[in-house]
């Protein structure tokens, strides 16, 4: 049985308590922020901000969504990490800070743009799912502090059932696009969302792909291109020309004889 976190965006009131609790528990540094024209603060996730409430304004109200690591079952960051620093500890995707070389590949590979390189320490960092807490029977700090019950922690199968029921209720209550996100995406996410709108409206990819998707085809594309170049310009212009000139020469020689 694996654990998961369910984030119900219909309950989130954007108090940003989760952001503060995450910073406090994990000892993350404060970052200099700037006014970006919305109430979002800071403007983006970073090596020192592992969860952040996104604000989307639209006619009739706001859409709020705390954005953090999904702890994917098929994790792109883990697949591409060349140093073996990223691994699954149960359901949790962790970056071993002692092994990370700071190449930044996980930053480019994540479909949710979660890991960030720490400019000071040089390594990639992201949400640890408070692994130190959950392995000791506690909830992650973000869940523990959430005053509205928007964030919950528990058995994944229970939260999937709960999320599906809630999405159904929301659809009946005038949110026709409400859905549960994360049940099947990337082999199943361990951060599940009850969304009141379509994923793309809430800042999530509708169909997140594993970075290594079609990797074999991409390797083959390059190799085949090298083969085409070897045959078309090189063989035609060097080998074929040489053969033609040799044939011509042997004909001339034959003629002389």
């Amino acid at each position, binding site marked *: 049985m694996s654990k998961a976190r369910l984030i119900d965006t219909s309950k989130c009131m954007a108090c940003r308590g989760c952001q503060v609790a995450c910073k406090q528990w994990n000892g993350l540094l404060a970052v200099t922020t700037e006014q970006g024209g919305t109430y979002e603060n800071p403007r983006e996730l970073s090596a020192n901000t592992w969860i952040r409430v996104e604000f989307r304004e639209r006619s009739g109200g706001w859409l709020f969504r705390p954005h953090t690591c999904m702890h994917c079952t098929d994790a792109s960051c883990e697949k591409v990490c060349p140093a073996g620093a990223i691994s699954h500890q149960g359901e949790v995707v962790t970056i071993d800070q002692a092994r*990370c*070389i700071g*190449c930044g590949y996980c930053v480019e590979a994540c479909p949710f743009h979660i890991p960030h390189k720490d400019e000071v*320490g040089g390594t990639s960092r992201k949400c640890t799912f408070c692994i130190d807490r959950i392995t000791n029977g506690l909830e992650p700090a973000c869940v523990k502090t959430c005053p509205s019950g928007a964030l919950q922690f528990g058995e994944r199968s229970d939260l999937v059932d709960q999320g599906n029921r809630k999405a159904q209720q929301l659809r009946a209550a005038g949110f026709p696009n409400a859905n549960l996100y994360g049940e099947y995406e990337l082999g199943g996410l361990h951060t599940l969302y009850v969304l009141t709108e379509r994923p793309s409206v809430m800042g999530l990819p*509708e169909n997140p792909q594993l970075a290594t998707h079609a*990797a074999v085809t991409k390797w083959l*594309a*390059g190799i085949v291109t090298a083969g085409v170049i070897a045959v078309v310009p090189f063989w035609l212009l060097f080998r074929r020309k*040489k053969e033609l000139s040799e044939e011509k020469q042997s004909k001339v020689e034959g003629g002389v004889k």
Partner: protein
Amino acid sequence: MNWSAPIYVYLWLAGMAGGAYIAAYLTYRFTGANRQLFRLATYMGIPLAVIGVILLVADLGRPLRFWHLLIEFRVTSPMSMGTWILMAWVLIAIVLAVVWWGERYFSNGLPTNLKRLTDLLSGLNVIFAVLLTTYTGVLLAVSNQSMWAGSVLLPSVFVASAISTGIALLILGAMITNASTEARLALNQFSFAKDWKISNHTIARLAEVDAGVIIVELLALFGYGVWLANSSLEGAGESLSVLLTGPLAAPFWIGVVLMALLIPLWLDFANWGKQIESKAVARAIGLSSLCVIGGGLILRAVITIGGQI
């Protein structure tokens, strides 16, 4: 920006090193001559790859941990595969260079077994060179940045560009070698030869081959764009507009389309079949090669930067 100048300069240098090796090996094998061109490609490729690696290591967040790459072999990570491919290519190239250097101590040429071994290693290194040039594209393509991951043809563009820039490097290297006594003497220190000379005929034919490679690159780039425009990956279509009409349109159209592709193509076709004893032809082919090399860098830059916009 997560990946910036050190990364795209590295992709350009590693591609050029691999591309020059592929081009010179094929020329050597198909013509049955031009052994010196093949050696020149190896000598030029080694420092380019080493400089690239230094850039790459310096760009790591924790450069002193670069050795972590050398204790892992991770098939799903193009960066891990690239590390091993690059290392294999450079090490074999160094072994070849050492054997060629040692040739002077064999008055009747290399012993048959050693010659067979170098032939085998030279051939094996072409496979590594192909994988090296491919990996520079796959590194970006295996990601979740729409401009990189949205089209399977990105590695094709990079391979074609690598071989094109490699040929241009060979042309310039051969021209410099032929023109400079000092360069020939220096090369003689590495590889003993009575006279270091790469024939003008070969240089002119290489320019023609480069025109062919550029056509393949043009087709690959067009295919890449069409694929990206129709990709199911979110944001792929929009990322194409970053190149075509967006903030990178000027370097893309001027640096890539004109400089790397159309101008060299025009210059190479204009001098098709001509010998480079004529100074005007030599200048045109030299200029074409410079454009290809410069344009190759701009191509890596716009794709690397564009993917992160």
